[in-house]
């Protein structure tokens, strides 16, 4: 086996996350799917760091984690405030901005 296995796995995980974003309506699950996509990217970064023999990939993966944490905090806060006003966590219910 080669590092290609990791990369293809990451690609498949990313795709599953993306499809999850498309098909799930619960905002929190959508958020989880986004986290999955971020994680698959992290796997790619770490794999390439190993492949090229540099540690920068790992550092960037660390940054991704930090930013993801910040994003989760803000995103969940947004979901909470939307839930408070609309009593719903479905992304389809937040559809006022349209034609």
């Amino acid at each position, binding site marked *: 086996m080669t590092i290609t296995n990791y990369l293809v796995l990451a690609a498949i995980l990313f795709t599953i996350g*993306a499809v999850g*974003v*498309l*098909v799930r*309506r619960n905002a929190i699950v959508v958020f989880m799917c986004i986290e999955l996509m971020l994680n698959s990217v992290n796997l790619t970064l770490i794999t390439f760091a190993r492949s090229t023999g540099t540690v920068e990939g790992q550092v960037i993966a660390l940054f991704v984690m930090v930013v993801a944490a910040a994003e989760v905090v803000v995103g969940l806060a947004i979901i909470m405030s939307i839930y408070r006003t609309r009593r719903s966590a479905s*992304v*389809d219910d937040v*559809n006022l901005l*349209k*034609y």
Partner: protein
Amino acid sequence: MPASVPVDGLLSVTWLVIVLPLAGAALLLLGGRRTDRWGHLLATGTVVAAFALAVGCTLALTGRAGRAVSLDLFTFIDTGSLDVTAGLLLDPLSAVFVLLITGVGALIHVYSIGYMAHDPGRRRFFAYLNLFVAAMLLLVLGNSFVALYVGWEGVGLASYLLIAFWHTRPAAATAAKKAFLMNRVGDVGLALAIFLMFAQLGTTSYAGVFGSVGLLAGGTVTAIGLLLLLGACGKSGQFPLQAWLPDAMEGPTPVSALIHAATMVTAGVYLIARSAPLYDATPTARTVVLAVGAVTLLIGAIAGCAHDDIKKVLAYSTVSQIGYMFLAVGLGPVGYAAAIAHLLAHGFFKAGLFLGAGSVMHAMDDTVDMRRFGGLARRLPITFVTFGLGYLALIGFPFLSGWWTKDAIIEVALDRGGWSGWLLGGVAVLGAGLTAFYMTRLMLMTFFGQPRWEDGVHPHEAPPSMTAPMVLLAVGSVAAGFLLVAVFPLSGWLEPVFGEPEEAAHLVSPLVVSIVVTVVVALGALTAWLYVGRREVPTTAPARVSPVVTAARRGLYADTVNESLVMRPGVWLTRALVWLDARGVDGAVNGAAAALGGGSARLGRVQTGFVRSYALGILGGAVLVAGALLAVTA
């Protein structure tokens, strides 16, 4: 043409001739009701002063070499290659016109004081009259075609305003519009001619244009000549634009006398005479002038025979007489002097006739139907005498004005030689006979026979302010021809303008011509007596008449022709254009807008508000990009 001798003395203030009436008009129009009481006197005063000044200028002119003076006043238009200097040209031709305009104008102003005494719009009337005189003077005094054009439009405006002076009467308003529109047709021709001159020669001044006629291509000269003729036809009521002039009689009678008989309508003759160097270079256009004159002469005379409205008869007579003038100017250098002489004589007797008609109307409570006149000779002696003298002058009674000047034209026409000479001469003689017929008919129906007055009409002679101008004009009618042809030959006076009058070998002896013409005139008058004078005149026009009379009553179907050839196609064209505009242009615009609006409304449906739909688009884009990358690196 302009003299190089420095201009001094009275001649240097020639511009005052125009400015005086213009100032009068401005004062009356701007002064408002404050000038109501004395406005008419001021207006008359300005024209009388202008006449005095004109006489002085003309006398001063006689002593000068070349008998011409050109004044550059100020730069009128100075843009790029177009450089028009407003300037005046006083030469024998314009001097004659200035004298006619100011002289007859002054008399008619005096007449109007009496005629319009009780009209509430008297001040306005005099203001317009002054405006007209100023514009007409500018027309004849300008030293370039542009200045002429300004005056040309000015008299058109004044004519419109004065025809519609009683604008509350629908007939007057319609007649004014008709006159204005038909003049416009001619004015477009004149404007195009001026454009053509500027485009080809770069100048519009008389000196510049006439000095370089030789540089122009033959076709261009012909085009300019024909366009100028179109302008002249419009202004002078010549075929095919003659229909407006009889209708213009809706205006007050002094207006008919001044504008539509003596001065404005002769502007076309002035234009063609002034453009003599142009026409010298284009025999084609000159022949067309000739033809227009001959045709109009007959149309006017024939239509005049059948009308019962005294002013319309006189109007058709004017059309016919101006036809004589066009015929004369169309004959070339030999005819110019004759045309101008006839123009001056006509100015006198036709103005006199119109003033007489006005006096009759004044006496008959504004009735114009000759069938309701009759037997007025005793009631209106002064009017009868002056009108009679004008009548005799018009039909060419021996030794009166018309005899001298009309015979001259007929002679010149016959002298042309060949079949065309005989034809034109014949037409002119026939026209003289018809003139005698309709004028005699008019005289008989108005002044002789049994009174056929409507109830309650008490004819009375007009006040002196009206009769005095009539008397003066009658004197002019009697003497003008003799003075202009025999005593002070006009051809000699106009020599600096038209060149040495060549003494053509007469094909037919003048004596024979005179005798023939006189006989024909006598025959015409006799026929009229047989038809009208001998028997009772019915008070209503007979309905069962020959087609010729019907045609003549309708002005030889000029209006019908205009309507079917111009108006109805114009209406159809307008309707088609409106349809095209509403359906085609608007449809395209609205259709495009609707298509855009509908399209964007449908496109806007893509914005569902569902984030997942948008995300699907993003993923689709990502697939495309990945596929493209793969395809590129493959």
